[in-house]
């Protein structure tokens, strides 16, 4: 499986964030997008997720399910955690598991993998920022998607959470998955490729 982008140009509010951007990512590889604030890291992830349209350029995926778009083959972890405060931890995750389609992993097990199994009956309103992040990471485990688009995945996570995240990413790559992450610091993957926005773009 290969995700490639060529000649991507993105404008937000009349300001050009990047132009002529291209990359290619094969199965089992991770790409870390870095750059200063406002350089377009999040916009790049949203472009690939189909939530923004590029002004120019194209994004394509080879070797996946030809019937499904890139967005349908991707998990997107944005800045917001997509949780409803009045639903419990378990209800939130069960909803996304049902919405995202054929579950490969029961929600209860995904909660356990993120260390949230004791909180399943707690309304999400009472979670800390790091616990919310863990819960939205658990979403990635319930349904299989080959491409993970992670926007600062380790934000608000403690050291233990970060090492769990690293383990999950390593496991995903080992199964032939692709990861595209926007980050300010190292995300713990030894041989991740790096794409620096701003200066070079």
């Amino acid at each position, binding site marked *: 499986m290969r995700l490639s982008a060529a000649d991507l140009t993105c404008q*937000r509010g009349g300001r050009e964030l990047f132009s002529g951007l291209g990359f290619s990512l094969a199965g089992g590889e991770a790409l870390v997008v870095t750059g200063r604030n406002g350089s377009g890291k999040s916009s790049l992830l*949203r472009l690939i*997720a*189909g*939530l*923004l349209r590029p002004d120019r350029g194209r994004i394509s995926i080879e070797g996946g399910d030809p019937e*499904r778009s890139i*967005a*349908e083959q*991707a998990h*997107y972890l*944005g*800045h*917001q*955690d*997509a*949780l*409803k405060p*009045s*639903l419990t931890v378990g*209800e939130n995750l069960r*909803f*996304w598991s*049902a*919405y*995202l*389609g054929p579950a490969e992993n029961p929600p209860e097990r995904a909660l356990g993998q993120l260390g949230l199994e004791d909180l399943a009956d707690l309304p999400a309103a009472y979670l800390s920022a790091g616990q919310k992040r863990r819960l939205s990471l658990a979403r990635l485990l319930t349904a299989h998607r080959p491409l993970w688009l992670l926007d600062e995945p380790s934000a608000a996570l403690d050291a233990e959470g970060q090492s769990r995240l690293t383990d999950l990413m390593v496991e995903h790559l080992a199964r032939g998955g692709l990861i595209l992450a926007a980050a300010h610091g190292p995300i713990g993957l030894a041989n991740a490729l790096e794409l620096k926005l701003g200066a070079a773009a």
Partner: protein
Amino acid sequence: MNAHVALFLRDVRLALRVGGGAWMGVLFFLIVVALVPFAVGPDSGLLRRIGPAILWLGALLASLLTLDQLFADDREDGSLDLILMGSAPLQLAILAKALAHWLTAGLPLVIAAPLLGIFFNIDLLSMAAVALTLLVGTPALTFLGLIGAALAAALRRGGLLVPVMILPLTIPVLIFGVAASNAAIVGPVPFGTPFTILCALSLAGLVIGPIAAAAALRHAD
């Protein structure tokens, strides 16, 4: 479980939880309608004449009250991004949300309406007819409101934008809803004529609303 069923059940559950919209709409409806006899005075003939119109106006305002949050909440917490990325058709996802909204915000109005008939000196049989017009007419309000709610979420402007955009579109629903109700109470027009047009408006909204709302959400940045 099917994705749309899951979305429908989640929205129903959210509406019934603390802070959900299910109770606010019906309470607002009860209060607005109950205030009218105090403002108009104890003229039972007049109240009987304007009763259906007041019930319809109250239902219109009450269903708009909770509508502007339909997509705005999902937009703010990031759920909308994931809904847009889903493999299920977006129009059907929107329809699932609309049905959940109607079930929790529209249907309670229909159930509460006969109770309010007492305030307007409307007899039981006529009140059942008014409730029936609300039953087939309130879905049209939800479906039209979808368009405004989607635009408001796309533009990231909530508040009064939805009522200002949607209220003019609801005029046909109001006309035929009140006409059918009056036909049941005082005549002389047969009840069936305006009633079938009201049904048609709901069915047209069922098709147009989700498609227009999906287009608005897809083109949001």
